[in-house]
């Protein structure tokens, strides 16, 4: 632990994150009791600290040796508060989906901690981990491949009960599944149908019902609407907002559609190449971005208003995202940044409120990992 802290001092200094109240529990039963305890609205429910995931690159067939690592997630810290939606945006390859998989403990983190109610879930195993997983569920991107085509809807939504029988006793399951179908706006009589008999939007509703089955507290949504048609996207977004109010859920909402993220999120984090570039409330990020990457990203979003095309300034980035196996030194965005100076190649910018904005009571005072953070007026995605 101490070693890790030293290595990633930079990220540890971030003030956007609140102090962690670590809860010590020696036995599994104690841990389970802690995990079942409710969290007040507005209190942090999930605290991510210096999360790192490196995928090894190996060479050789018989004697595999590691020749490098894809630094998919490289020191990410944020808090998720009870009842809020945290949007995470970024280009493909920036590590946002890997963060989702780490929060789900589908991948084991290389370093860093994820505290759920004060328990570091990256260290848990066995029964305690199982209890955590019950409370953190996921909705996947592609409703066409995330549902088993040979299982009926009833089996798909009821499958979580097989693993966590304490939530619904055997005789009760069918009724529970039908309730869930009703909650997500599907006809409860469809329980014996197969996924291919539904449209994309309906399938995503099935995916959401499966995510809700265990009464989780957190739902991680990895691009939940990007595979859907425009007219159906709005239906699913409305459903997700309704469910959030009804069941008091916290969402981590990962997407690349910036206007949808703005609509649904309370706070937004912008990721670039495994690091958080900027994080703040939706107003701070969309109206007062201070990181050049956020500014470029917002200006590149096509605005559905033909009158805007003549008089809006667009920042067109050159080139592609560098490979995460060999990221640039210093600031990772410097290779595509128009502000880059020598300092950017040597010094990693911290994710913190920039010095010049500190103490200001204005929306520009939010965490931005740039040496030359400044406000720039961009006609962004409304």
């Amino acid at each position, binding site marked *: 632990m101490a070693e890790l802290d030293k290595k990633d001092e930079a990220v540890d200094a971030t003030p956007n994150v609140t102090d962690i109240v670590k809860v010590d529990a020696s036995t599994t039963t104690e841990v389970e009791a802690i995990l079942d305890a409710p969290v007040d609205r507005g209190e942090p429910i999930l605290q991510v600290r210096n999360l790192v995931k490196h995928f090894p690159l190996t060479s050789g067939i018989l004697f595999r040796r590691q020749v490098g690592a894809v630094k998919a997630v490289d020191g990410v810290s944020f808090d998720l508060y009870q009842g809020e939606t945290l949007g995470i945006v970024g280009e493909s390859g920036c590590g946002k989906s890997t963060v989702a998989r780490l929060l789900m403990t589908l991948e084991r983190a290389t370093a860093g901690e994820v505290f759920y109610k004060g328990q570091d879930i990256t260290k848990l195993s066995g029964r305690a981990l199982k209890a955590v997983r019950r409370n953190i569920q996921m909705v996947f991107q592609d409703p066409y491949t995330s549902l088993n085509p040979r299982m009926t809807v009833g089996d798909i939504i009821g499958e979580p009960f097989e693993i966590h029988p304490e939530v619904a006793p055997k005789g009760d399951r069918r009724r529970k599944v039908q309730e869930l179908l009703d909650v997500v706006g599907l006809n409860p009589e469809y329980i014996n149908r197969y996924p291919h008999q539904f449209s994309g939007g309906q399938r995503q509703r099935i995916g959401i019902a499966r995510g809700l089955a265990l009464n989780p507290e957190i739902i991680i949504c990895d691009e939940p609407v990007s595979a859907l048609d425009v007219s159906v996207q709005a239906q699913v977004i409305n459903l997700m907002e309704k469910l959030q109010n009804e069941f008091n859920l916290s969402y981590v909402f990962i997407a690349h559609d910036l206007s949808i993220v703005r609509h649904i999120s309370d706070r937004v984090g912008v990721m670039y190449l495994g690091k958080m570039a900027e994080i703040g409330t939706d107003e701070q990020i969309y109206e007062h971005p201070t990181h050049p990457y956020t500014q470029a990203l917002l200006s590149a979003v096509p*605005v559905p208003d033909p009158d805007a095309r003549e008089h809006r300034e667009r920042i067109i980035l050159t080139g592609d995202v560098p490979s995460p196996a060999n990221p640039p030194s210093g600031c990772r965005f410097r290779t595509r940044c128009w502000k880059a100076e020598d300092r950017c190649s040597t010094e990693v910018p911290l994710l913190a409120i920039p010095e010049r904005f500190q103490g200001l009571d204005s929306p520009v005072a939010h965490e931005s990992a740039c040496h030359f953070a400044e406000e720039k007026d961009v006609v962004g995605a409304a």
Partner: protein
Amino acid sequence: MTIIEESATVPAPRSGDDKGGPLLEVRDLHVEFHTRDGVAKAVNGVNYSVNAGETLAVLGESGSGKSVTAQAIMGILDMPPGKIPQGEILFRGQDMLKMSAEERRAIRGRKIAMIFQDALSALNPVLSVGYQLGEMFRVHQGLSKKDAKAKAIELMDRVKIPAAAARVTDYPHQFSGGMRQRIMIAMALALEPDLIIADEPTTALDVTVQAQVMDLLAELQSEFNMGLILITHDLGVVADVADKIAVMYAGRIVEQAPVHEIYKRPAHPYTKGLLESIPRLDHKGQELFAIKGLPPNLMKIPSGCAFNPRCTMAQDVCRTDVPVLHQVTEQDGTDLVGRGSACHFWKETIHG
């Protein structure tokens, strides 16, 4: 060798066409697919036209028939099961559906080219990009391998692929998504066609790369004065580049308008619904407007107006009569140029 010289010269500025009409005109096109489960009517009477230098955006959800129309124009529909029972596709005044396969081959690629959505599956993974780009010149112009490769490098330079000469021997998987899409564009541009059909050219790309690719496409279009049919479902992209828009629903054009008009005053409830379902700043925290229901099954298109089961304004007449594309007018009755709406209640939609 004269061919090289010919193609190396600057293309002469093209007048709209030779016979004084639009570059491409689609008239009352129908496409159906005969399957074991029945007949799916994918396109049911589509009319549109494109002039040289003009960008027509075809907007629609999946299953609206926008891509099938494009495939019919290119002559790359799978037939069977596809069938074109009626309609005309006029390229410079000549009906391509009546041409022989040889005549169509001469037009395809040379006069009308297509950019596909998914560059990774559209490119052949076992051939180098240089070979695939050069194929256009070898097949259509009979160039030698060496000359074709030189032309391929030139093309890659033109679409701004860095170090083109070094990368010409690379394979598609060695390029990033944006670079692969540039190669697709280069391939479509190879023979300097009069018309390019771009089928969701940026859907698979990130917004920053999308902006690069759309910019490049617009630049090349004005350089060569090409017509462009842009097929997309993204209302933002359309607003950025299109001159005019055709909105498709269940194989028909439900609304047609110049781009500036349609965003201000949609004249069809479907277009209106699509525009309203875009999240807007002042609606934060409220429910998004959502068009209820699902797009129709193409084997069982509802009678009357296909949109009637999802429409908030539907009346009895909508369930029985198929609306024609009405000329849209101002309240005082003056025609709005280029605007049409296939709704019985277009007046109420635009003026109400």
